[in-house]
């Protein structure tokens, strides 16, 4: 039988713990596919976050280190500096990168560390029960903003790619979404391109992925996919935010 689509070799046999319809599973698979296709299985090192994605070491069949909450970029910096020939990427959520890990992510980007950050943006703190994150949209209802996020008291949604784009150390920043077959294909290309920037040593690369969280958005999986298109992309426009010639 000819294979049309099979499980990537860099993904272990373990079952995902994610909720039904969660975007993390798609993103984990895409990263494993890119690692397989670029022949990086023996060279890639992942830094796992705190949050829903923290168990990625159970899924990726590559070396993975767990970092303290938000310190993914700092840990990845250390690994990359002592092992410059390895491909080092951190897998971080919005609570991890844009809240508690702002300083580490921002300054790693500013120093132009040769690492890649896979930034999963679902607009809430997923693992702890759907509290407001820095990326929560205006008027969005969460457990800590029961009447909707009010920018006067709770601030505005943070656009991480745009913030990082003004830093000279960054070389590739793209925002994609995994809410459609075409979006998933674009996400895979973006991850491959970010890894290529690291391999070519052009600078810090980050792929921001808008990812559905049906459980905490209180929606069905298909409603959450549509909500990304209809609402989330208005605040977080998709596309390449910055690309330095690779």
């Amino acid at each position, binding site marked *: *039988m*000819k*294979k*049309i*689509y*099979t*499980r990537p070799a860099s*993904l272990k046999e373990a*079952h*995902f713990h*994610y*909720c*039904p*319809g*969660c*975007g*993390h*599973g*798609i993103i984990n*698979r895409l990263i494993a596919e890119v690692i397989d296709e670029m022949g990086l299985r023996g060279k890639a090192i992942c830094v796992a976050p705190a949050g829903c994605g923290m168990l990625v070491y159970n899924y990726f069949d590559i070396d993975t280190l767990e970092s303290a909450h938000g310190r993914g970029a700092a840990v990845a910096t250390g690994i990359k500096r002592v092992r410059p020939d390895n491909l080092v990427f951190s897998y971080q959520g919005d609570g991890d990168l844009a809240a508690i890990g702002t300083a580490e992510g921002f300054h790693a980007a500013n120093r132009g560390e040769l690492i890649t950050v896979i930034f999963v943006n679902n607009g809430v703190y997923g693992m702890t029960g759907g509290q407001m994150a820095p990326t929560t949209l205006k008027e969005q209802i969460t457990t800590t903003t029961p009447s909707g996020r009010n920018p006067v008291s709770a601030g505005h949604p943070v656009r991480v790619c745009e913030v990082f784009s003004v830093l000279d150390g960054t070389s590739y920043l793209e925002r994609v979404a995994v809410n*459609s*077959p075409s979006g*998933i*294909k674009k996400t895979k290309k973006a991850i491959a391109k970010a890894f290529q920037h690291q391999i070519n040593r052009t600078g810090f690369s980050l792929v921001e992925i808008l990812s559905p969280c*049906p459980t905490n958005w209180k929606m069905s*999986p*298909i409603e959450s*996919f549509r909500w990304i298109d209809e609402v989330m992309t208005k605040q977080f426009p998709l596309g390449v935010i910055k690309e330095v010639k690779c």
Partner: protein
Amino acid sequence: MITVKIDDERCKGCSLCVEFCPKGALSISDRLNMKGYFVVSFADEKECTGCATCALICPDVAIEVFKN
């Protein structure tokens, strides 16, 4: 002849594959898996063109597609 292999124990019944299949060849069955989800079944084999959109969209890597 296309074979869509669905791993019942990985499936969480999110029905994204059912929604995105351009030919409507998949449907949610009345079969429960060990996790307690109603799993997807490959119902209409004749309609399937092997585009693998179901495998692409599946968040749990429960679907594999083969061509005989």
